[in-house]
Every structure is written in structure tokens, then in C-alpha cells.
């Protein structure tokens, strides 16, 4: 668990005795800014094609009540850094039968655009799991029905979101 004090998400201000003092920051500014370079070189429409999206469950069939483990990969196929502009600060989302994180309760992400950044040829992998229970209300969950279910992942990109998705299916028996 990362403590908030070790993160950048803390307002620091040397002139304000009541906010934490700033960290020593002497990062060199003399390197090539690959992000800006890539923005100059790679148009928005192409950027969505640069990222390959993949999702895979650890099994094809699950017992009722069994946890469904899955892996998600986003791979930058370009030898240039790519930044995808997203509709919300949420970089990517997974869904079960179209419900984000298996929840029928709508998500409430702030509607400010953000970015999802990939360095040159970078692969990002995430491990997630789903309990097999659908959130049907703020405080209520129900076991998923038996049968086939679709697990999808995607980046909510401002441009080319349709290309930045992948899905797979699994059975609850």
C-alpha cells in the first residue's frame, strides 16, 4: 500500500508552513521530450492503432462462486511514445456483459479528459479478478447467472475508442 505522503498527489509548498515542504527536485530538463516529439509525428487518428489491447481469463469454465482471474495487456506497437487522450481520468476499464467492473451502478468518473501514456514499444500488463457477483445496487450484489459471459476491456479514448477494445468469453456452469 503506497502512502499518500510518498506520492505526488500531495500539494507541497515551501512558502506555506502548513503544507508539506517540497521534495528536492533537480531533474534535468535537457533530454529529448519524446512525448512532444511523438505528438508532432503521430496524428491522433493513428495513435489508437498503435496500441494493441488484449484480455484473457485464466480458465474457460468456472464454478458458481468461483473468482474469475484475468490478465489485460496494452502494447505499444510503435517505436515512439504514444499518448492516448481519454474522456475521463480513468485510463482503462473492464466490464462484464457491458457493465463496468461487473456493476450495474453507473460509474461516476469526473468528466475531465486525461491521458494514458505509453513509452516506446511499452507493454502494460494488469492482473484483475471478478468475484462472480454483479453489483445490482449501491449496496447489493447478486451471483451471476450460469451460462456464457463476456469480459471486455477498453480505453475510453476521445479518438478511435472502437479500436482500443478487446473481449473474451467464459462460462459459469
Amino acid at each position, binding site marked *: *500500500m503506497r*502512502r*499518500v*505522503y510518498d*506520492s*505526488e*498527489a*500531495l*500539494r507541497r509548498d*515551501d512558502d*506555506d*508552513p*502548513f*503544507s*508539506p*515542504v517540497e521534495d528536492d527536485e533537480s531533474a534535468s530538463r535537457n533530454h529529448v521530450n519524446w512525448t512532444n516529439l511523438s505528438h508532432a509525428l503521430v496524428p491522433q487518428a493513428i495513435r489508437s492503432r498503435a496500441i494493441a489491447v488484449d484480455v484473457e481469463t485464466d480458465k474457460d469454465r468456472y464454478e458458481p462462486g468461483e473468482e474469475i482471474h484475468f490478465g489485460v495487456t496494452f502494447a505499444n506497437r510503435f517505436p515512439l511514445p504514444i499518448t492516448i487522450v481519454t474522456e475521463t*481520468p*480513468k*485510463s*482503462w476499464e473492464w466490464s462484464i456483459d457491458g457493465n463496468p*467492473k461487473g456493476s450495474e451502478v453507473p460509474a*461516476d*468518473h*469526473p468528466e475531465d479528459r*486525461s491521458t*494514458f501514456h505509453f513509452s516506446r514499444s511499452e507493454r*502494460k500488463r*494488469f492482473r*484483475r*479478478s471478478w*468475484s462472480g*457477483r454483479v*453489483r445490482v445496487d*449501491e*449496496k*447489493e*450484489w*447478486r*451471483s451471476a447467472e450460469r451460462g456464457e459471459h463476456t469480459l471486455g476491456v477498453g480505453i475510453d479514448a476521445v479518438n478511435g475508442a472502437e479500436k482500443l477494445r478487446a473481449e473474451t468469453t467464459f462460462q459459469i456452469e
Partner: protein
Amino acid sequence: MSVTDEPLLSVDGLQTSFYTEEGEVKAVNDVSYQIDRGERFAVVGESGAGKSVTSLSLMRLIDDPGRVKGGDVTFRSTSAVATLARKFPEGVATENSPGYIHVTELRSESGAVGSDPGATVRDNPTDVATSLHDGSLHIEAGHVDVLDASEDAMRELRGNEIAMIFQDPHTALNPVYTVGEQIAEAIRKHLEMDDGAAKERAIEMLERVGIPDAEERYSDYPHEFSGGMQQRAVIAIALSCDPALIVADEPTTALDVTIEAQILDLLKELSNEEDVAVQLITHDLGVVAELCDSVMVMYAGKPVERSSVEELYYEPKHPYTVGLMSSIPRIGDDRERLDTVPGTMPDLVQLPSGCSFHPRCPYAEDACLEHEPPLVDVETGEPVEDPDPAVHSAACLEYTGELQDGVDFDVQIREDAATDGGESV
């Protein structure tokens, strides 16, 4: 209800998340509580429970990728309202225009002024500012909407009205200035004193927090102070501007046990004498017993139990609290503190379904996987909408009658420690 009967601070439905590549980390997930004037309120839980983020959110110290997504923080201090109204009249709410500074009653010697006191302030900012300053007008009632306040207004509020003490004194002390200068600087900034007066008050403050030879030590640099002394200096900075609320985030965790006891005594004494409210963040229920009146236990970003400290000690109601209780170190016990709540805090990107505590709860039943327990009055099982400090509440299905077997625990209070409310160092 007069303004002094209302709580000093109300936090309602606070939600703070961090947006990372891993996903949305829901660090604070619908937290409500209130603190009265002069009250000492504890927020307890393990690391990752959301205690620090709760405090930093109310201090408005959360930065990108963190976001306060929802909720209200209301600070009811007439001096805060007066200072902000004087400096930021454009932020004063009137009947017809929104604002974060609410002046509900403005008085002169001859009585209440204006039917829309906010408009009075906003329409004649210079005159009102002068009158507020010289005392011919004063603000009788009002509050500040902290989450809507401007950045400049927040700088004014932090320190002047709400001060923060961090776990690590290095977070607050700047190594390149002397301790004395740093206290004097805070005083100059907030109390509008000249250099001489500020220095005098800084020395007074150093004495007040128990630093010997305060006058000489004024010119010491932070590294010349021991850890305990540094924390005393930080408390001096916090107190130097007469705040109404001190938020202390694990103020004694970095200190050894004897120094810890001294610092807790100091905080207690100061809060009694100066009538300042304290919000104490800690993972240690022993520290809570030393210092606080009431307590909120947090787990995975949510409050799971709220009560007076005494009731929590003698009759804890949530299985998580019971687990935490057994991790209180005992007098003369040199063993490593036991990890008595087996398991770890869940991933806040992906909370368990139902009761977030179910994977670690020895009493979990099927119902706990599908229903998230609301915070209810443990006596009546009724949901507590407004955080009422007099009501002992817990978020466990035991109290909504949804468990088949129920929870069952015995709390043993050791005689040698029970006299002051519990076991502690």
C-alpha cells in the same frame, strides 16, 4: 441553534479517489463525521484505511492524480469567516450569488446589520473590511465551504484556523531555516505582527511546548533538535496562530514510547487550555485512549464504527475494531506488536463485494458477500444519516439482523489499565 452549538467541523459524504494506471483507487469512500469545538476526535485504522487522505482532503492538500470527487466540508468559525470576508469579499455568498464564505449574521453595536448580510459585505467590501478589523462590526454566525474555497483563501485557513501536524516533523520543518524563524514566519503571515513581536511570540510558543532555553534554541536549525523536540517545534508552529482545529496525522508514530507519552500529554494539555479541537489520525487505539473523546474507525476508505472512546473500549461492536483492540500494546510488554487482524487491507482499486471486511472477518457469512452493511445505530439498527457523536454506530450486518449466526466476542479489559479508559503505553 446558536452557532456555538453547531459542530466546528462537519464532513459530509466525502469521497476522494486517485486515478492511476491501475485504476481508480477509492481512498475515501463516503465518509461523514463532525467535530465539536474543543473536542478531541480520533480517526483510527490500519495503513490504507483512508485516514490520512481524509485529513489531507479537508486541508485541501490533495493534488493530481488525486481528486476530491464529492462531499461537503463545513467549517464554522466566526473568526475564519471574518478573516476571509475581509480579504476575499468576492467569495462571500449572498441571497443571489453563490460563494464559499457564508455570513449569516453581521452585528454592530446597535444590532443586526442587513437582511442579507452577505450582500452587505460584498457590496461595501472596503468599509466592511475596515469595520471588521476595528471591531465596530463583527460576524456573529457563518461558515466556510472548505471544498469550494479559493486557493488563496485556503492558504489563509490553513495555519490560521486549521493547523496540521504530520507524522514526520521533516514534512513540516524546512532544514534551511532556523526553528525559531519558521515559527515567527507563521506568526508574521497569519497574525500580521511585526518582526520583533513575532519573534517574541515564537519564543513564547517554544516555551509553551516545553523546549528548554527557548530563547537560545530559537536560532537552532531543525537538525540540532531531537525527534521529540522537532515534533514539539511543529506543535508550536501549529499553535502559534491560535487555530480552532489541529489535525494531527500520526504525530507520535516516529517517536519512542516515552517521548510519545510526553507529546500526547502536551497535546492534551494544550487542547484543554486553548480550547482547540484535535482531529487525531492514528493506527494505535492506545494513543486514542490517551487523548481522545470520540472516535471513528475506518476500513478500506469507509467508516465502520463511530462512538465515544469509552464505549468503543468497553463495547466495541465491529469485528474489525475488536481485531484492532487486541493489537494495543500492553504496559511492560516488549514483544513485537502482533498483527492481530489476519490478512491485509483490500486493494482499493477493486474492493470486495458486500462488506469490504468479509475476506478477513472471522464471522463472515454468505450474506456478507452480497450486502454492504450501512452504518447503523447499534441499539436500534436504524441507519444513521447525520453523524451524531452520541450514537454508537457500526457497519456490520449483525446490527441490521441479517446474520444467521451472528458475531460473538468477549472484550477483556485488564484491571491495571482500565482505570484511564483502556490499555496503553
